[in-house]
């Protein structure tokens, strides 16, 4: 007897009769925009505005004492590019080497996690992410110990004559590894490896295992199956992994700062010095924009070349 009463909707509508059926529908149409709003506001305040501010800084002249004024002095760009092109080149080389190393190290691991790990899959994934539980700086400093002069690793590499080869290649210096290009590349590789592994894993994991069976059924040896089926299908992961590694690595300055020397300064170090030590804000801002433009150009070219839009 009482159940129908209990189940009836609570009659608490002080605004009077139910709203016309049209009103909630209009509100419903606006919901997506309301949901976008916080994100857009965030980006405007913390991305778009600083970008505009930075752009205006880059065409200012003056000094800290006299104050900076917008004088549309575009020559700063030219000067920055001509003065610091070696550091730009080094950034691209180091980041590029680190990206290649990450791909070579990360692909087999991602492949293993996706296809062979079985019940260990989640454990290995956690291990891949585990370094993020400690600070980036601490991890990089740890590499200082690992690569320390006379340390066990350097000693071992030295007695195996590996350092002779790397010295000949110009990435190490005699029996030192620390404060050489190799140390910086190692640090970059280590720090950005998870950004390579995770996208690779996601795209490999999405590949239907039956495609491997189908390729085998159609006379493809396991190696051919990898070359003709697995690798092409993992291209979206390769592209996003390399981008997620290369872009931050190209702008990184911590690894070069902690593991390198004055000869291994990357463009990130120059920007940092200009901003914080020399206090030449226009040059620092101009360098940032040149780096951004260069990376955008390279990325666009790379995506066009790899033809990944075709795969998704």
């Amino acid at each position: 007897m009482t159940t129908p009463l209990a189940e009836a909707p609570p009659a608490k509508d002080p605004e009077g009769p139910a709203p016309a059926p049209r009103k909630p529908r209009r509100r419903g149409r606006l919901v997506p925009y309301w949901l976008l709003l916080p994100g857009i506001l965030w980006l405007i305040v913390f991305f778009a505005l600083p970008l505009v501010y930075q752009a205006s800084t880059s065409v200012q002249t003056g000094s800290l004492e006299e104050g900076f004024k917008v004088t549309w002095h575009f020559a700063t760009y030219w000067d920055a590019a001509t003065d610091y092109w070696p550091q730009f080149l080094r950034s691209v080389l180091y980041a590029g080497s680190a990206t290649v190393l990450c791909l070579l190290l990360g692909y087999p691991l991602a492949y293993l996690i996706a296809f062979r790990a079985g019940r260990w899959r989640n454990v290995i994934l956690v291990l891949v992410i585990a370094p993020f539980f400690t600070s980036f700086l601490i991890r990089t400093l740890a590499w200082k110990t690992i690569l320390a002069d006379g340390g066990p690793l350097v000693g071992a590499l030295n007695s195996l004559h590996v350092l002779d080869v790397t010295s000949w290649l110009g990435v190490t210096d005699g029996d030192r590894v620390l404060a050489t290009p190799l140390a910086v590349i190692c640090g970059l590789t280590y720090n950005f490896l998870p950004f390579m592994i995770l996208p690779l894993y996601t795209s490999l994991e999405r590949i239907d295992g039956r495609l491997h069976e189908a390729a085998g059924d159609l006379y493809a040896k396991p190696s051919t199956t990898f070359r003709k089926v697995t690798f092409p299908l993992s291209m979206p992961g390769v592209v996003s992994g390399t981008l997620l590694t290369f872009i931050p690595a190209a702008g990184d300055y911590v690894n070069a700062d902690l593991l390198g020397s004055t000869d291994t300064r990357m463009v990130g170090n120059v920007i940092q010095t200009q901003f914080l030590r020399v206090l030449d804000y226009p040059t620092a801002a101009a360098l940032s924009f040149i780096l951004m433009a260069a990376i955008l150009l390279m990325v666009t070219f790379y995506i066009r070349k790899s033809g990944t839009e075709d795969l998704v």
Partner: protein
Amino acid sequence: MTTAQEHGGDVRLTGISKTYGSFTAVHPLDLTVPQGSFFALLGASGCGKTTTLRMIAGLEEPSSGTVHLGDQDVTALPPYKRPVNTVFQSYALFPHLDIFENVAFGLRRRGIKSVKKQVGEMLDLVQLGEQARKKPHQLSGGQQQRVAVARALINHPKVLLLDEPLGALDLKLRRQMQLELKRIQTEVGITFVHVTHDQEEAMTMADTVAVMNGGRVEQLGAPADLYENPRTTFVANFLGTSNFIEAEVAARSGDDLILKAGDCKLTLPTARCTGPTATGAKVLAGVRPEKISLTHADDAGRIPEGRNRITGRIADSSFIGVSTQYVIDSPACDSFEVYAQNIERDARLTPGAEVVLHWNPAHTFGLDAAQDVEAGASKVEEDASA
């Protein structure tokens, strides 16, 4: 030499079995599929039919036994070295390659350079010549299925394995593809081994059907033979519908057994009884619903002599166009099913009417009573992922 050629496409499974831990998917099995035949492995999900197929393809390693293709023992060969090709359940087309390259895949892997003509011809055979440069996801399910067939057939395998190839298609398209596959098989003359859970599909297409249940072959034969002479209740129920009457052998008369079931006497040809035939033995007398005639009890006198007859009351009837299906309560067997062609409909045959069911004794089959009458009956809602 000629005999070797003729049997080059035989598939011979000897004592083959597959176990996963303590679970036996396929019990030791001997099976020979003759060259050029269309062979179906029929059964419900988990009966071991797909595992058997995958062992022929080399995608699954048998726990024991051997697989021969013609005279060659291929048990130890990896799939890419076996002269068989598979049409996968979900087609497994390469999404990054277009239709042409999908079909050319096998040829290219074997180092054949000029594939254009062959691929063109194969695409024409499956009527997809126009679609060569499209990607698989741009095609409909039926077209993808045909690409999968073309991709396998172009390699001229000794045996083509089909794993539920029509499972993902809707009913109408499935019918069409059944005929299409049969046409292609007749045209190319390759041995087809087809795995399906759809009894109608197996019966329409195959020359020989092996009904599998619980990792064993329950019965093997031509579709009509399986249907008319099932040897187990599983086969009788899985292929179509059967009515069973629990009976006892009362006597023998010439080539027939006289059975007693409650008050009625039934005649069963001895040759059609796979159960015990000694007097006093328990048997299940089976009869297919469409073999039975229904006569209203008032007209019982007009039924010719010599027919098996039992009495009952119509419990339910449903009109389905070509025929009417009746469910009849009878002392001999509750819920007896009868399919009557709608030729001359007797208006008195409505639920509640007293009727006599009668049929030619030659359509009766006898099975051992020591088995589950319901085995294989609940096959309606099979999922295709068997």
